């Protein structure tokens, strides 16, 4: 029956159970997984092995590509010139520090000064004078004002029954007493101004006297005269203020006679008189202010000169101690007690750059400066200099900021002034390359001999295996040391002038030693594999199908061996790196100046107590590499050789 294409009826054929043939087909259509896909899947499930693999990849890529971008070469000695060593300050620099020449390039060459003790104006004490705050007249005026205000308030309240005239009078009264208070205050200020100018004069005169005693060249008599000249104007103004105040009082008294019944004109006139008098007092006082300020400046200047001179004496004492380089802690303390307390500034060419809180006594601060790192400093370059405002400061010489940007020595430098980071990167490269090539050599020799022995069997196998037994029972490390120590002498002449000279006799001898001694375990492993694989039924079936030796080896033996080969090669690399670093430590490793992680660590042994970072960095890197290679190798074994899993 032909089916209707758009029929809504259920198609019964769709519910027939699948035949066996169909089922088989569906099974075959499942995505197939090869041995390697399966292994990789298992490897990726192993988080530790995956992380280790990522670390290895990152380290390898770093060691290959980073040197292209790094501004320093692995054998480039910093601070060197064609003539020879220019700057000895490059040796053994701590991480992120610079050599002296670099410091000058960074900071420029203009000298700046780090001020840690300055005798700025802020340190001058204000002149003390007798200040009048509340005179008797002012008190009375304030009391009268308060009374007037209270009266006005009472009248304004509802229900008081006060007339408009009464309220207007009360308001006028408040105005009058306010004016009186102003006048009294003006008198007070004028009195204070007079006192202050007199005190200033005294202080200036005293400073001038002191300057004469100290033998200063500055003529302070000018300052004294200026201040003295200011006294009489101020006194005159004061007299004026008092006069105006008296007039105000008289006017107030005249107003007091009036009552609420007085005519509005009279009241207004009285108020105007009072205000005018009070304003005169205020004006007189205001006039003193400018005079006083002027006098103050002059006086301060005079006193500052003397103050600075006194501070310079202290600063000179410290400088002498610095120059003599006999400053002990106690010495500093004694010196520091004479110093004023205050803020500490850094000046770059007179511009205030940075302010430090001086939370400790100056004497302690001096000690701290010793480790101050932003500007180069040594004990000798201390100086007392004079600043723009005539004060003396004790400071450390530095160099001008804002110069060149120089790439930091991330890991510091080594004893010969070479950038340590790039040496470690190259060391990593050398160690990884030595590990890889040694493993490949071991792999090739071991695979060749192992497969020959396993495939041929018989007498060949017997002889090879006896040799393997003997080499296996040799103490490998001792033989390696022995051969490496002699081979590097023998090879030195042989490889001269060839490509191998660049690699260095030591590494070549290392490879030869590896090729001579370490192939045995690899060949044993491969022989065992081949022996067991040869007996497998699928090999027999391949043989029966007429496959030749070549096809059997290519299609059956090698693919089944390859996981074991990869795993043991991966595990061989860290042990080769281990051996290389061990030999480097004994002085049998790579040729100088080429670094390896082992030779870096063994070089760092000289002076490890003073420069521990030189030991710690290669130690960490070598441990990281060996650890991650081991963990990755273990993961690889677990993933690709599931038969070993328990």
């Amino acid at each position, binding site marked *: 029956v032909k089916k209707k294409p758009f029929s809504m009826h259920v198609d019964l054929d769709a519910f027939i159970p699948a035949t066996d043939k169909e089922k088989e087909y569906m099974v075959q259509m499942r995505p197939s997984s090869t041995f390697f896909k399966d292994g990789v899947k298992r490897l990726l499930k192993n988080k530790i092995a995956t992380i280790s693999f990522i670390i290895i990849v990152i380290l390898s890529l770093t060691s290959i590509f980073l040197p292209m971008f790094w501004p320093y070469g692995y054998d480039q000695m910093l601070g060197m010139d064609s003539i020879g060593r220019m700057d000895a300050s490059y040796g053994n620099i701590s991480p992120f520090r610079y050599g002296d020449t670099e410091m000058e390039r960074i900071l420029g060459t203009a000298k700046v000064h780090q001020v840690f003790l300055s005798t700025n104006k802020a340190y001058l004490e204000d002149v003390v004078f007798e200040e009048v705050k509340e005179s008797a007249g002012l008190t009375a005026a304030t009391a009268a004002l308060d009374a007037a205000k209270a009266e006005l308030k009472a009248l304004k309240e509802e229900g008081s029954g006060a007339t408009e005239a009464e309220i207007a009078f009360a308001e006028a009264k408040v105005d009058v007493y306010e004016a009186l208070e102003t006048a009294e205050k003006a008198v007070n200020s004028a009195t204070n101004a007079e006192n202050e100018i007199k005190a200033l004069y005294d202080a200036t005169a005293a400073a001038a006297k002191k300057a004469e005693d100290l033998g200063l060249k500055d003529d302070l008599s000018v300052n004294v005269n200026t201040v003295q000249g200011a006294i009489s104007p101020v006194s005159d103004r004061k007299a004026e203020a008092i006069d105006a105040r008296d007039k105000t009082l008289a006017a107030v008294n005249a107003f007091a006679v009036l009552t609420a019944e007085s005519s509005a004109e009279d009241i207004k006139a009285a108020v105007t008189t009072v205000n005018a008098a009070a304003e005169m007092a205020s004006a007189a006082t205001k006039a003193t202010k400018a005079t006083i300020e002027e006098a103050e400046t002059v006086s301060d200047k005079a006193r500052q000169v003397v103050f600075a001179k006194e501070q310079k004496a202290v600063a000179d004492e410290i400088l002498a101690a610095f120059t003599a380089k006999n400053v002990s802690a106690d010495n500093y303390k004694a010196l520091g007690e004479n110093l004023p307390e205050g803020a500490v500034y850094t000046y770059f060419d007179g511009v205030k750059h940075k302010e430090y809180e001086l939370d400790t006594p100056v004497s302690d601060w001096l000690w701290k400066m010793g480790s101050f790192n932003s500007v180069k400093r040594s004990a000798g370059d201390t100086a007392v200099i004079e600043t723009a405002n005539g004060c003396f400061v004790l400071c450390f010489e530095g160099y001008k900021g804002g110069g060149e940007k120089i790439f930091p020595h991330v890991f510091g430098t080594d004893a010969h002034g070479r950038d340590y980071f790039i040496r470690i990167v190259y060391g990593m490269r050398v160690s990884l390359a030595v590990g890889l090539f040694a493993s490949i050599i071991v792999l090739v020799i071991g695979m060749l001999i192992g497969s020959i022995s396993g495939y041929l069997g018989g007498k060949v196998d017997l002889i090879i295996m006896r040799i393997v037994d003997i080499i296996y*029972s040799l103490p490998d490390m001792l*033989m390696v*040391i022995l051969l490496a*120590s002699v081979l590097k002498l023998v090879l030195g002449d042989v490889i001269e002038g060839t490509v191998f000279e660049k690699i260095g006799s030591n590494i070549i001898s290392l490879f030869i030693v590896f090729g001579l001694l370490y192939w045995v375990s690899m060949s044993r492993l491969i022989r065992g594999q081949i022996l067991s694989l040869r007996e497998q039924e699928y090999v027999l079936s391949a043989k029966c199908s007429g496959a030749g030796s070549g096809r059997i080896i290519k299609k059956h033996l090698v693919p089944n061996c390859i996981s074991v080969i990869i795993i043991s090669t991966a595990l061989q690399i860290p042990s080769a790196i281990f051996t290389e670093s061990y030999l480097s430590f004994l002085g*049998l490793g790579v040729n100088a100046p080429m670094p390896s992680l082992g030779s870096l660590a063994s070089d760092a042994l000289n002076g490890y107590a003073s420069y521990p970072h030189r030991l710690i960095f290669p130690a960490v890197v070598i*441990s990281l590499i060996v650890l991650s290679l081991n963990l990755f190798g273990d993961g690889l074994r677990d993933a690709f050789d599931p038969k070993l899993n328990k």
Partner: protein
Amino acid sequence: MNTKTMLYIVKRVLLAILTVWIVITVTFFVMHAVPGGPFQGEKAITPEAQAALEAKYGLDKPLMEQYTTYLKDVVTKLDFGPSLKNRGREVIDIIADGMKTSAKLGVIAAVSALIVGVVLGSVAALRRNKIIDRVIMVITTAFVSMPSFIMGTLLLLVFAVILQWVPANGATTGGLILPVITLALYPTAYITRLTRSSMLDVLGQDYIRTAKAKGVSAAKIIFGHALKNSLIPVITYFGPMLAYIVTGSLVVEKIFAVPGIGRSFVSSITDRDYPMIMGTTIILATLIVVMNLVGDILYKVVDPRINLE
């Protein structure tokens, strides 16, 4: 002990003797392949003096004659000839002197590695997948990955220089503490892992389950059944451990300035003191070969199930 075992032991001993002979031969010929001879690098000496020196040390004779003489002296009298750098001293005397300190160092390191390793390994196996097991495994993995000379210098830096708990010089009293720790760390870590895995293996065996079913106490199971059997693989590590300690002591003695055989070996390499290099290599190699032999035979005797060939 059956004849098969006896045969194996005889074969093993013969192989060991052969190995020692090869070591001596290789050492001798390798050393004589050095260009310039042993007196190179010294102060310029006249040809007459050179000839006199060579005659004195027998270096003017044919190589094969020198070899047979050397072999005879070594085998019969343990005579490695005089040291070239330490004039007037026999190599064997220097080795014997250094051996006292080195043996003390090595034996303490080996014993402590065995004790600590077995204890930690058993604890890790019995507390499998607990925190303590994880901690032990992480620490041992880290120690296995750290070369002994780096471990030694870091220990020296931390405990002798910064903390100043122990003296930095290995020749003083208490100075052997750090060298022993440095030498023992790697074998300890290895033995811990070895013991853990074999203990886990043993704990899964039928006879342990039988013992448990019979109601034997946990302590008796652990000490009476499990521990004894799980120590068998540790015996195989006996030889490699000694080899590690011998080679490790070369750098450790250099770092900590221990006046042992390792330090004189390292300095003889830099000094090109050939009789000394040869003597030390032969003595240490023989030691390692003999210890490997002892370990293998012990292994066979302890566990007769093992089929060695």
